[in-house]
């Protein structure tokens, strides 16, 4: 599905992504882990067209999509969520979802003026769909709340919700888990699996919660200081000395006496 070749992205002198090459198989749920500052988000941003790569290229189904603008990538079926939530703060939660689908009749002025009927119909459909998603994410009580007023985790959910509004080929999730209640994270995990199974989404997700990764992801790719450190099944990775050394650590040293 996605192939990244010798990707390099440097900010000034600093190489955030340093000659990283990896492939994301169609239909897989690929996990991307690594220490803070390993370059995961930067890699995402480069793939999603937010940053121009310093060198290297990105292929989608063999087609070169390097440096395409985000909105172009969206239309090719590539979606992404942000690590630091990017909600539309002055719009209601529902509107946040309804604005997502592409090629809405009402998005060209002419139609907005002279094809009211058709738009109304579309809107109704959209609203229903949005409400389904909100139910699914257990935040339907916030349908009419301004997105700006959501709690940290709720914003995360909203981010995920957006990707569920359209039929995407591949979805990049940057730390959906961070700040999301673990029980809910389970449901989200199941959701991801379902989307993957039923709708054939391909996923690539960054996460620091290893249980979550272990539960969902195959394969798991480990990045460190800008390049790929290891790749393989979750359990192998968790045994991998280098990975433990760089990323997982060995658990708490002190213990409290209670």
């Amino acid at each position, binding site marked *: 599905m996605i192939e990244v070749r010798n990707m390099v992205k440097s900010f000034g002198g600093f190489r955030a992504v340093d000659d990283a090459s990896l492939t994301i198989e169609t239909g897989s749920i690929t996990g991307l882990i690594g220490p*803070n500052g390993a370059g995961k*988000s930067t890699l995402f941003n480069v793939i999603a067209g937010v940053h121009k790569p310093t060198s290297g290229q990105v292929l989608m189904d063999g087609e070169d999509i390097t440096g395409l603008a985000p909105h172009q990538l969206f239309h090719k079926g590539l979606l992404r969520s942000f690590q*630091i939530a990017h909600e539309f703060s002055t719009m209601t939660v529902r509107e946040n979802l309804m604005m997502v689908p592409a090629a809405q009749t009402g998005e060209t002025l002419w139609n907005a003026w002279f094809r009211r009927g058709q738009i109304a119909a579309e809107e109704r459909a959209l609203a229903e769909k949005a409400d389904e998603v909100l139910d699914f994410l257990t935040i339907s009580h916030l349908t009419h709340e301004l997105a700006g007023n959501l709690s940290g985790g709720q914003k995360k959910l909203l981010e995920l919700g957006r990707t569920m509004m359209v039929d995407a080929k591949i979805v990049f999730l940057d730390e959906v888990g*961070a700040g999301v209640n673990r*029980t809910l994270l389970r449901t989200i995990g199941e959701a991801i699996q379902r989307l993957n199974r039923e709708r054939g989404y391909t996923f690539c997700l960054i996460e620091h919660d290893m249980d979550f990764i272990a539960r969902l992801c195959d394969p798991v790719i480990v990045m460190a200081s800008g390049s790929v450190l290891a790749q393989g099944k979750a359990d192998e990775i968790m045994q991998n000395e280098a990975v433990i050394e760089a990323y997982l650590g060995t658990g*708490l040293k002190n*213990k409290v006496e209670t």
Partner: protein
Amino acid sequence: MTEHASAPLAGDAPFLIGEAMSGGYGTGPDILHGCTIAVNRGEIAVIVGPNGAGKSTAMKAVFGMLDLHSGSVRLDGQDITALSPQERVSRGMGFVPQTSNIFTSMTVEENLEMGAFLRRDDIRPTMEQVYDLFPILRDKRRQPAGELSGGQRQQVAVGRALMTKPSVLMLDEPTAGVSPIVMDELFDRIIEIARTGISILMVEQNARQALEIAHRGYVLVQGANAYTDTGKALLADPEVRRTFLGG
């Protein structure tokens, strides 16, 4: 299962307590409904709960960032409900908010300096300690914090709070987005800090690890205490595990 909701805390009077707090944002509906949070001197209290339960709100309330229409906040026995946030800071309270918790346009080092704004003594040693705790920050000290990675930002945020040398430290999801190894480091450090007699009050979604080290755990649901007990006990409670800790 045991209901501890408003049971008085074990041992001496709590060092910091927000008692029966009710309130919301501006003119909006109440978010908190008589919720109580307390922590003893040198202990660690952890708040867990579903998203939107009001954990952050509760923290903000304790720090005086939204006005309560009932309930009170007491620090070391004195009522501080009326004090402004920066007065609370000067009384030795430190707080790391959940979001926008760094000065993005300032360098890492300046962020730390700002943390120590009220301190008149030499801040070098503390800064060194922070750098030892989060080595990556030492390399990035001259970089604008806005250019850091998510996890690195989180580390800066915590570092900033540590710089204040507070007597009570309030952390809203300090480990969100940090790698396991850093998280362990962080928790270790928090335990050490607590040992030096500083009280720690934190919200966590990595609930299991957090409750591991917590003397006291609170489960908030819809702005009210659902369960209150020692961290261990909560971890042991199957009901809590299922509904809040993800099994």
